[in-house]
């Protein structure tokens, strides 16, 4: 186990290097640069900016400097917001994304798993059909449709909740609902599928045969194996969900990292894009590792190698 974790962590280094390198050159290859404007920037001002950020140097030299700094996790100041260090921007933007994702994930799990279990237990009943139809809707409605509809109903017609912003508990409700919908639906469907399979296993029949109450059969024995599909889905899902949803952060003006990444790419804010991409990549890899380890705990048959 320890060797496994260590090896995986070592592997992250070349992966991160490759991602950073690709991003560096892709950003440079995109047309335009960070210091352009609809209004001409005076040549003198441009020179000052280019010299300040080392953009007057040839690419290879910029690349070497960048790698050296990146290794120390120092991406320098943002080009667009020169008073902000990239690391500070990430530090101050990530919590909002993380919080949004965390609530959404908790909501999705708290409702999705019970719904899936209930549906599986009452397979082919009205409850099952109703739940599965609802989750089908949840899976198919894109969040950029669901978000504005929720805003229209709860913020602009009923005036119950603010339509956007990240200030106070009430402002969390709509973005969390919007973000969690698809995960909730998906988790419910996965749970149902996993549970259906598990409930047909011999050891469940054995458990029932020895007279265990149904609740113990389901929650004590079946659930642990039945939600395995959810666990493997959670790895990438957790990463996606807590890294922030670009669309939802835009619609609801959430000061998160997803919004930063999009505007940084549009602004050709090289340092900020690189910083966020490397952060994302590292975070994703760590989460995947956590999921792999968790998987072996849920299902002892899985061997880490």
């Amino acid at each position: 186990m320890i060797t496994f974790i260590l090896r995986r962590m070592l592997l992250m280094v070349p992966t991160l290097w490759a991602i950073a390198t690709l991003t560096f050159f892709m950003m440079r290859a995109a047309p335009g640069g960070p210091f352009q404007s609809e209004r001409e920037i005076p040549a003198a001002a441009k020179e000052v900016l280019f010299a300040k950020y080392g953009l007057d140097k040839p690419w290879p030299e910029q690349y070497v400097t960048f790698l050296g700094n990146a290794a120390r996790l120092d991406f320098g100041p943002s080009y667009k917001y020169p008073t902000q260090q990239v690391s500070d921007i990430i530090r101050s933007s990530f919590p909002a994304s993380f919080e949004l994702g965390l609530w959404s994930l908790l909501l999705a799990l708290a409702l999705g798993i019970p719904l899936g279990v209930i549906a599986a237990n009452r397979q082919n009943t009205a409850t099952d059909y109703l739940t599965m139809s609802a989750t089908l809707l949840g899976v198919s409605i894109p969040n950029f449709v669901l978000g504005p509809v929720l805003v229209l109903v709860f913020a602009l017609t009923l005036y119950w909740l603010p339509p956007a912003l990240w200030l106070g508990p009430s402002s969390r409700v709509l973005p969390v609902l919007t973000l969690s919908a698809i995960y909730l639906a998906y988790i419910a469907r996965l749970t149902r599928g996993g549970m259906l399979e598990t409930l047909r296993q011999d050891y469940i029949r054995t458990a029932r045969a020895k007279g265990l109450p149904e609740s113990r059969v389901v929650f004590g024995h079946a659930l642990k194996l039945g939600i395995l599909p959810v666990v493997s889905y959670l790895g990438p899902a957790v990463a996606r969900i807590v890294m922030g949803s670009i669309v939802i952060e835009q619609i609801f003006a959430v000061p998160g990292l997803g919004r930063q990444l999009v505007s940084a790419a549009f602004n050709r804010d090289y340092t900020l894009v690189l910083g966020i991409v490397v952060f994302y990549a590292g975070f994703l890899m760590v989460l995947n590792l956590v999921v792999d380890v968790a998987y072996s705990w849920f299902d002892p048959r899985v061997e880490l190698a």
Partner: protein
Amino acid sequence: MGRTSGGRTRREAASLAPDGILRPVTALAKNQGVPALAAVAALVLAFGTGCAPRAAGDAAYFGDTTPPSGQVLTFNNGAEPEHLDPAVMSGQPDGRIARMVFEGLCSADPRTLAPVPGQAYRWDLSPDGLVYTFHLRPGLTWADGHPLIAGDFLWSWRRVLAPATGSRYASFLFAVRNAGAYNAGELTDVTQVGLAAPDESTFVVTLAQPTPYFLELTTFYTSLPTPRHVIEKLGDGWEDALALVGNGPFRIAEWELKNRFVLVPNERYWDRGAVKLERIVALPVEELSTATNLYKAGVVDWNPSGYVPKTVVPFVRHFKDFSGGPYHGTYFYSMVVTKKPFDDVWVRRALNAATDRAAIAEHVLRGTVTAWGGITPMGYAGYAAPPQLKYDPVYARECLAKAGYPGGKGFPPIEILFNTSEDHRRIAEAVQAMWKRDLGIQVTLSNQEWASYLAATTAKNYDVARRSWIGDFADPMTFLDMWITDAGNSRTGWSNAEYDDLIRRATVEVDPAERLRMLSRAEAILLSEGPVIPVYHYAETSLIKPYVLGIHSTVLDVHPLKGVSIDPDWRSHAAAAEATP
């Protein structure tokens, strides 16, 4: 449902505002949103506006009209400011914050934007129109209590002009003698620049030539003073929102990146008594539909011009709190005249005459803008603009024939470049159809995202491109000097000796009427020979709650907030005003 539930939202937002923070927006609304998202959001918003009003008395207004408790103004600033240092900033959101935190020699009248005494309580102009002597108010201080003296203005303006500062708008001070040469590095002795502070309360500016709009320039953010004593101590760090030391009516109390600025009155401001607001919250909401939703829900009291999606304007413009007056900007197409076939003036005239601006304004943009056949916008005192270009398909065909392409035969396929935006696309499609119909030429469309579009236009790597220009001050010059030979903002390669000469002479002309006549002649040349196809005149599209007093429509979209206040009894006041006409 009605006002109670609306009141709840409002209270909630207010409770956030007092302890929490909100944020501002900028001019980066260059349509960087996710198009599909914006479209859906706009659609939903459009339906939303069709809903029944929540309370009978509110029918005339867009959304919640419950005033906040207390003198608190929440507005959308459009984006996170890039800079808080007035010397280097270049965006609307930056400027809005700077104008609250700093004050120049003059400040702007909230209705007319005419220069009124600011840090200087009076000024004299020498008879030859060259030397302004500003007299500062006695006892001025920075927000940290440090005295503010004329030497601060001298130091600040020199700092703007110093090449190492990298100020994007240093040219705002080029009216000052030798300022341009010093900024370009041709002159290294700063004392040669026409700025002096003979004593602590006198600031003397010597101009290169009489400049009728010079006082207006002193109200622009680049001219705002910056605190030498802080900058010398903190270096670049002085720009930190929470460390920022200004001299204006407000100071920054709280700041969260991409979430909000909270400003409170600067107790040391000389005119503290005139400042009514206890708190200003500026939000950086970029997504226009979101900004408009926030306004409708009553979280935001003021959504400045440009932050209402174009597609939504037709649905909200009948509300009393929508304001749609003229705005100092022009939307046009430009052509690269160093390329075939645009090197031929008759081709340029043909394209111009085949552009049906009225149809674009009326049908494509649903009457939300004014069709405009000139490059300078409306409304300069004393300026007689040349006749506007007209849509004339017959003349257009004649021009094309004169260029050697009768009926469009042999005309090479050309491309219209625009940056990502639903409106730009629809206009380009309309123009494409018009040119095909009236001239028989093949036009393709090229959509690029903002940075690519900027790179292409700057490099003159396009045929025809969608462009726009927003005036910096209320004078035709701000729309005309960009077209002289090799000017960086022309981006067309156009050069005309007579035009250059007129602009140069107008720059030094002492007689204001003669100067404007020269500019008008120059504009006539530009319209008849030039590389531009004007399309429409910008209109203001702002939303201001009826309880906000003191924010007026202005052509430059500059709104001093010093005297703004919240009227908790606006309903009874509005009713009284209606009763006594």
